[in-house]
Every structure is written in C-alpha cells, then in structure tokens.
C-alpha cells in the first residue's frame, strides 16, 4: 500500500514539469501575417525586400472593416529580413495563416525563384497549399493594397484563387507544393499567376511561364483562359465563336482535358479536351438549325486557338503541360531518353482534339 502510494506520488511529481503547458505564446501576443511579398531592392548588399501584411484583429466583422499594417525591411536574405522585421513589431509573427506569397516580377528576373522557394519550403509553419503568384509591378504594391470589400484582412486575395470565392476562368492557381514539384521535375515546368492592381482591387488574369529559374513567357488573359482549360481542365469558362453582329458564346460548365503522345518514336503531342456547356449568347433559333454543326465549328475554332498557344509555349522553351514527363513515363525513363526529348520538343507538332457538347440554348430558343 505504502509502495503504491509512493509510486503514485512519484508519478504526480514527474508530471509537475508538464504544468508549464506547451510553452505556447497566447494569441494576443501574436501578429498574424496574411500576405507576404518578396521584392528586389536594387541594393546588392541587401537584395531582398520583404513586405509583410499583418492583420489587426478586431471584434467587428463587416465589409471594409478589415484593418492591417504593412511592414517592409531589406536584408541579404529572406530569412534575415523576417528576423529583422520582428524587431520592428511588438508581437511574435505567425505565418500559419499566411496563404499568399507574392514574388516581385523584378526579383524573378534578377534572382530567379529558387532562393525564395527554399525559404518557403523549409518553414514548417507555411502551408503547402499557399498560393504563390508574381506581383506586378512589384510585390509591395500588391501586399499594400487594402481592398474595401474585405471582411477579414487578406481574405480578398485568397478568395480570388481556386473556387472558394470567385470562379474566375483566367486565374491560374498555383499551390506551393505544386510549384516546388515543378521546380525540380524533369519535363514539367512551373507556371505562376500574375497579380496586379486594378483600381481598388486585384487583377489576376494572366499567367507567367517559367523555366526552372526565370520567366520565359507572359500570357495575355485570353491565352491564360485557354491554358487553364487545356492544362488544368478548369470548369466555368467560356468559348467564343466570332460571328456577326455579336459573337456566339458558350458558357462551359464542365471541362476535362488529358494530354497524350501519339505516334511512337516521332511523337505528336495530343491534347484531348471535352467541353460541355450552354449557349449564353447566340442569335435566336441558331442551335435548332444545326446543333452538330455548331458544336463542330466551336470545337474547331477552340482547337486552332489552343494549338496556336501550344506552339507559342513550345517556342518559349518551356513545358508547363508536362509533355516531357509523359514522354519519359511512356518510355520508362530509359537512358538517353531525356536528351532525346530535349531534341524532339522544339520541333514537336501539336494536335488539340476538342469535343464540344452543347447541352442547350439556355431558357430561350
């Protein structure tokens, strides 16, 4: 009995050190970073300019009620800049809720994305599903913008991506883990959305194609839409067929796309894409007259446009679709295959096989 009591006492005493808790800082002693921007500062000794947008929590939740401050510091590396930045604020910085990372356009031109990615992937508290984008003209201006429609600081920017908030067809969504994968993968290259300012709002309707280091090609909004559909099969997009007096427009509700390589040793890169949707803009009775013909015409038009885009991307020397990876997978990563693909890719031919299926003409004929 005494032994048991003594043992119990020992156990209780050993649990005493745990009473200190998890040594966590309380939430009121933390600053929540909601977006972070990295720029090039033109100072060779301290090339990285890090801007962090810090949320000021408030009890009111209303449109335009979001309060935040932006802090900026220059340093020789991103990690040092963040350390230094801590000495300019009174609370501990918390990156766990930061889902927007903006890389300045100039930073990528001067320094590439590799150094920034090293910091982002190394930190344990940065989410792998963060959105990464290019800021134009620089990251600071994107971080510094405080849109009036925000309910919570920083939520306007992340609602722009994916399909949580707006389902914008021209917005490419690139997650951190995806960017990291593309940075290292043979035969698959990174692609980043480009965010710029549009009055009191963000405008994210273009995409940048990168090789493993630098940007090679910027797409305009129409091309970005095509890219989004062909590469990611993004839903809720549109296809327009030029017509007089006004274009015929199909609202595509569902898109699936798949890449393939046909024809053995001298391959043709094939993109199979299936688009379903409703007509949103059309002259009356057009669909009834020639349903199949209209579908065919739209598909043909889409294929032509998409092939033009594919050749443009190919000529820039990047491969965001992953044709190279597909080729290596087809040839079980054999010796010399990667070198062979690098010779093949600059002259490869593309074939976009679009099958458009029109579900109806909306509410009227």
């Amino acid at each position, binding site marked *: 009995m005494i032994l048991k009591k003594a043992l119990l006492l020992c*156990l209780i005493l*050993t*649990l005493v*050190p*745990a009473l200190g808790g*998890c*040594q*966590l*800082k309380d939430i009121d002693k933390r600053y929540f970073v909601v977006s972070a921007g990295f720029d090039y500062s033109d100072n060779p000794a301290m090339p990285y300019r890090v801007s962090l947008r810090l949320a000021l929590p408030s009890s009111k939740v209303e449109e335009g009620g979001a309060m935040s401050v932006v802090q900026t510091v220059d340093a020789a590396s991103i990690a040092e800049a963040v350390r230094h930045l801590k000495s300019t604020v009174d609370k501990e910085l918390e990156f766990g809720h930061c889902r927007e990372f903006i890389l300045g356009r100039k930073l990528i031109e001067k320094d590439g994305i590799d150094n920034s990615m090293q910091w982002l*992937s190394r930190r*344990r*508290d940065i*989410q*792998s*599903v963060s959105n990464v984008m290019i800021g134009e003209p620089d990251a600071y201006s994107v971080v510094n913008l405080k849109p009036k429609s925000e309910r919570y600081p920083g939520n306007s920017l992340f609602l722009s991506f*994916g399909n*949580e908030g707006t389902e914008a067809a021209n917005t490419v969504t690139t*997650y951190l*883990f*995806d960017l*990291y*994968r*593309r*940075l*290292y*993968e*043979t035969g*698959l290259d990174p692609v980043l959305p480009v965010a710029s300012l549009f009055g009191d709002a963000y405008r994210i309707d273009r995409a940048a194609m990168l090789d493993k280091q630098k940007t090679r090609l910027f797409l305009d909004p129409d091309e970005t839409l095509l890219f989004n559909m062909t590469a*990611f099969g993004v839903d809720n997009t549109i296809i327009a067929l030029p017509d007089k007096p006004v274009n015929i427009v199909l609202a595509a509700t569902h898109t699936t796309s798949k890449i393939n390589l046909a024809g053995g040793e001298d391959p043709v890169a094939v993109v199979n894409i299936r688009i379903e949707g409703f007509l949103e803009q059309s002259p009356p009775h057009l669909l009834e007259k020639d349903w199949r013909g209209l579908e065919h015409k739209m598909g043909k038009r889409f294929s032509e446009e998409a092939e033009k885009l594919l050749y443009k991307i190919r000529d820039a020397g990047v491969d965001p679709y*992953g044709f190279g*990876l*597909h080729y*290596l*997978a087809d040839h*079980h*990563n*054999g010796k010399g295959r990667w070198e062979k693909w690098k010779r093949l890719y600059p002259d490869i031919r593309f074939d976009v096989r679009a099958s458009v299926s029109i579900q109806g003409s909306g509410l009227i004929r």
Partner: protein
Amino acid sequence: MIRYYYYHIFYVGMMNIMVLVPYVLISHRFDGAVSSFPLAIALGTLYSYVTSSVFQRFPGLGLPEIYKLFLPVWLANCLNLVGVVIWCVAGIIVLFSYSNTIGIFFDPEASAYLNLAIMAAASMWAASRTSRSVQFTHEVLLIVSTPIILWILFKALFSNWLDWDAIRLIADAGIRRPPSMICLFASSFVFSGHMNITLFNRLNPRDLKFRLRWTIPFVGAFFLLVSFFVPIGFHGTQAVGNYLYVWSVTTDSLQMKYGFIQRVLYLFLLLYTFLSLLFVMNTWHTGMEFLKACFKKVQAAYGRSRRACHQLVDLRCAGGADVRLRLFYERYI
C-alpha cells in the same frame, strides 16, 4: 475473435505510412524499391500464413510458453530476452520518430524531451494493463481512427493534384531494376502485423481458425503502394526526395475547404498520435509479457501439479482431433 488478429494486420498497414518506411523506399525510388514490392508481398504473405498456421497448432499458448515446452529453461529465457529487446526497440523507434514529428508540427516551442516523456508515460501506463484490456483499447482506438484515416488516404488518391505521370514513371522505371535488400526489408514491414500473434495467441480460444487469410496480401499491398506512390504523385519524381517528413507534407498538400480546420495535416497527425501510441502500447506490452515469462515456470502458469497440466492438455485438445499435438503436450509438460 478472429477480428483481433486482423486489427493488428490492419493497423500495422496504416502505421507503415508514418514510420520511416516510405522515407527509405522513396530515397531508393530509382533503384530497386518498386521491384522489391512483389517480392515483399509474396514473402510477407507466406510468412503470415506460416506463422498463423503454426500458432493455430498451439491454441492458447504464446511464444514464451511454447519455448518453455520444447526448450531447456536457459535457452527459452535467452530467446525471451531477445524478444524483449526486439519488441521494446520497435516501440522506442516509433515513439522517438513520432515525438520528433509532433515537435516539428504541433508544438515547436516546447522541449522535445517533454513531448517524449508525456508520450512515453502514456504508453507505459497503457502497456502495463492486462493483455485483454490492451486488446480492447486497441479495438476502440482503431475503430475510431480507421475510417478517417482511410478517408484521408482516398481523398489523396482521388485528388486532381496527384500526377499519375510521375507515378507511372517511377513504377515503370523501377520495376526494371533489380530488387535491393534494404527495400525488401523495408517494404515487408507492412506485413509484420501478424507478429503480434506471438503474444496474443494466449487469448485465442482453442477452436479458433484463421479464416480470411487471403485478404492479407491485398491489405498489405494496398497500404504499401499508397504509402509509396501517393507522395510521388504529389511531389513529383525529383522533389519528393527532398522532403524529410514526406507524409506530413503530403497531407498538408490536401485541404478540406469546408472543414472546421482547413489543413488536413493536423487531423492526420492527431489520428496518427492515436496509432503511434497504440503501436507503442502493443510492442511494449509484448516486451513486458516476454520479460515476465522469464520468471514464470510454465507449470506455474497453468497450475502446480502434473495432473492439472494433463487436465489442461485434455481441455485444449478436446475431442482428440490432433493426436500429435496431444502427444507433444503430454511428453513435455
């Protein structure tokens, strides 16, 4: 009762994801990991079959008792002590690596030893219960966590971001390489769930038949392939080799948009806390029982007199279905 046997097979399959196995296999992904999978599946299944068939001949006896029946006492005790070392080390490895993961993702500001101490204390307490309550704890925790873990695994498997080209490349290129020893051993871990029978056979009734054993290769192969190929699909053939905590980062790449917490990682780590504690509880309990068996005479375990032993044998071999086993018992007890 047969379900207790399959609980072990199932939970070791799920544990496979969190222990060091995927890390080892992924670091050998270009040389010999994939080609050792078929070998591991065949060997693991064979091993499970043989072990369970052998233990089926000794209903109600654990490995220490069987040692005592056939071997001199000193040798039996030596083998028991080897068992103690193996089982306890298995628990320590998992405890250490998991408390490390917790320290990185859950609680970076706390001391690493505090995490370790709390988890060790919990496991020790759980392991020191009777075999029956260990079995029941195992059942309860497994029923709670399995559906959600499977849900996370299937969510990953059907995610749009899973790159099947990368998986195809690794599978296709890897199967053409000669298998390697390290990968064979690492990948056969997933089939080691049946080893728990060495102790828990004590609790099995005498008419137990190991039915449904054909499911073992399927369960094992599923968890083995998922634990290896899903991270490759998410992180590509090259970048996956750069990650130290492969599965933690992979589940962090998933999101529950409309869940209470958006990061799947925390749910996943919480569930794997259950499973790790479960694993440590089982291994340490087995180690403890092996140690206890060193100080027990086998007669003592089953009654003092020779006559009582004979009664026991009669009871166990009721019906005289297995004459040879009966002879064994009578000769050696």
